[in-house]
């Protein structure tokens, strides 16, 4: 078989003393070419009768040449994607330490509930009388979220974290415009999630940074000094991306409110405080909750996100439609036609329908199976696991905020102390050889060569100890200047990608080998 390796990295190294196989396969690790290299345009898994000639209604826009997609038979297709899937890493395979991502176990009970016919086979345009159970799920989940956050209102429709951020900032904009107050600036601390400034800019605000203190928290004095009549609000991540709780949160909120602004809290790290801290008590006006993180619905390639937003009294009237309301023992969908007198100030709509129904059922199943005490223990165990990692590694790995007290759900390290020429990237690649997905790298930006590790509460002590052992081993290699690390990963299906070339000269479309060679 001739392989077209245009721009693709080399295959993994053969272990010493082994023979290169004819196929390139290594026992259960199977080589798999691109679908374009094995398929053919004239091949198909399904035979259709010749399509009868019909009159085109496309007004000259019909395709006038073949699209060039290749076909495979059904067994070839199944094998192709199954082989590719075996090169993937997943939470069901092992610990997934991505920081600020909360890659926790997705309980199978959730999946069972989501697949119940009454939830799985319904359509958003069905008459509401025929989907009362589904509306009850949306309503009850919203009540749980309000209760857990201490906030009076919730918008269920935003479809992921950043979408929730936009929802919250649009509500802030609407509230300010309603009082005739056109403010222009959103303040974002350095320890906030990277999506926060992007959201504020997308909503039409000018973004200004607020520096972090040497302890990795928001510089309250700098924030207070910057507040003024042009500041619409702040977007703050708590716990922040340094893995630390912001103990001044209430004072920050009070200062922002006193200056006429509103407070958005990025709730992506809610896993660390669920059941322990109610953001409503901290003066927060809007916060998104990632059901796909804190409430265990699958994500990161495994499923869609879902980012409901809770609101304070001040912002509740501006929340987007639709809402589910309980009237007597009947659930009603409040939309444009039915909103009438209440929700007249709603800023509009974030999505066509009601949100990620499949995530609602899973999240509610998770909450109800854990109960209030179980959710509280989630936060406790998540924080305990992260601190166990932090303290087990700080003798070999630089922990820039190790002296700032216990961390929350994630531990932050840096590559300080590695041998000259060895970086976080080398460590991350070596971790792939150890069979782990790398942690979050080079974020937060306030720490040089950052590594952000979030183990989550669903890892056992044995699993943590094994991960710590792997990490200690690669850290020691990086400190000793082990040159083989620059070539890592060695055992993965592909060697280290040339990220620079991929970004500078991306190859976005597959080309015939002759064309690719001609282009070089």
């Amino acid at each position, binding site marked *: 078989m001739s392989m077209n390796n245009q721009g693709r990295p080399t295959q993994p190294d053969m272990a010493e003393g082994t023979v290169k196989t004819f196929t390139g396969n290594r026992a259960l690790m199977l080589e798999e070419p691109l679908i374009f290299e094995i398929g053919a345009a004239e091949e198909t898994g399904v035979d259709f009768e010749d399509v009868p000639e019909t009159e085109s209604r496309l007004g000259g826009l019909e395709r006038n040449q073949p699209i060039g997609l290749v076909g495979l038979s059904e067994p070839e297709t199944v094998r192709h994607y199954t082989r590719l899937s075996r090169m993937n890493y997943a939470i069901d395979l092992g610990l997934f330490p991505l920081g600020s991502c909360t890659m926790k176990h997705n309980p199978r009970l959730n999946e069972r509930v989501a697949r119940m016919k009454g939830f799985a086979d319904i359509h958003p345009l069905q008459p509401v009388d025929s989907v009362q159970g589904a509306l009850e799920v949306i309503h009850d989940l919203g009540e749980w979220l309000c209760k857990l956050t201490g906030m009076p209102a919730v918008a269920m429709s935003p479809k992921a974290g950043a979408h929730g951020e936009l929802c919250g900032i649009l509500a802030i904009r609407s509230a300010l415009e309603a009082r005739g107050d056109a403010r222009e600036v959103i303040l974002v601390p350095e320890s906030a999630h990277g999506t926060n400034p992007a959201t504020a800019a997308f909503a039409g605000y000018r973004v200004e940074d607020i520096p972090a203190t040497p302890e990795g928290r928001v510089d309250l004095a700098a924030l207070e000094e910057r507040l003024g009549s042009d500041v619409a609000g702040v977007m703050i991540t708590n716990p922040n991306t340094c893995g630390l709780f912001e103990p001044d949160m209430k004072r920050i909120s009070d200062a922002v409110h006193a200056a006429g602004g509103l407070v958005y809290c990025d709730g992506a790290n809610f896993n660390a405080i669920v059941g322990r801290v109610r953001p409503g008590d901290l003066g927060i006006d809007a916060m998104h909750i990632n059901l796909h993180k804190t409430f265990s619905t699958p994500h990161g390639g495994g499923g869609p996100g879902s980012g409901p937003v809770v609101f304070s009294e001040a912002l509740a009237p501006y929340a987007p439609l639709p809402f589910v309301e309980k009237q007597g023992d009947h659930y009603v969908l409040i939309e444009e036609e039915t909103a009438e007198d209440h929700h007249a100030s709603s800023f509009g709509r974030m999505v066509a329908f009601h949100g990620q129904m499949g995530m609602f059922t899973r999240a509610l199943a998770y909450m109800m199976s854990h109960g209030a005490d179980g959710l509280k223990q989630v936060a406790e165990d998540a924080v305990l696991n992260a601190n166990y990692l932090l303290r087990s590694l700080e003798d070999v790995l630089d922990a820039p905020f190790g002296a700032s007290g216990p961390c929350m759900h994630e531990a932050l390290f840096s590559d300080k102390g590695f041998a000259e020429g060895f970086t976080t990237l080398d460590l991350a690649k070596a971790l792939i050889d150890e069979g782990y997905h790398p942690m979050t790298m080079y974020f937060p930006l306030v720490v*040089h060569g950052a590594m952000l590790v979030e183990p989550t509460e669903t890892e056992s002590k044995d699993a943590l100890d094994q991960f710590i052992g792997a990490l200690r081993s690669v850290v020691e290699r990086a400190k000793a200047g082990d040159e083989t690390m620059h070539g890592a990963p060695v055992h993965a299906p592909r060697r280290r990608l040339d*990220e620079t070339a991929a970004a500078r000269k991306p190859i976005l479309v597959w080309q015939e080998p002759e064309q690719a060679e001609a282009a070089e």
Partner: protein
Amino acid sequence: MARYFTEEHEWIDVDGDHATIGITDYAQEQLGDIVFVEVPESGAMLEKGGEAAVVESVKAASDVYAPVSGEVTEGNDALVDEPALVNSSPEEEGWFFRMTLSDADELEGLMDAKAYKAFVDSL
């Protein structure tokens, strides 16, 4: 001609009321391989400290700030096709844009080469 530096790691060469701006060798080193650069168009009005250009590396995307106020006279289009110039020649061929100075007093408070070196060493 005099060269000044900012705490945000831009350099500025001043020649009368004209200036050339880029990012320092230290900045490119920290950013790693530069993969994308967006320079301002000529005619754009810049304010001291305001966003002027964008530089993106494999690690991060960063803003480049205007060290002084004035009007852009030329962006370095060579960087669009060859962003690697910022890595190979940050303080010469890898310049970002040229501009006029609307207020020469704004140069006060910028660092000279010696002060910038001391600043970088302190980081």
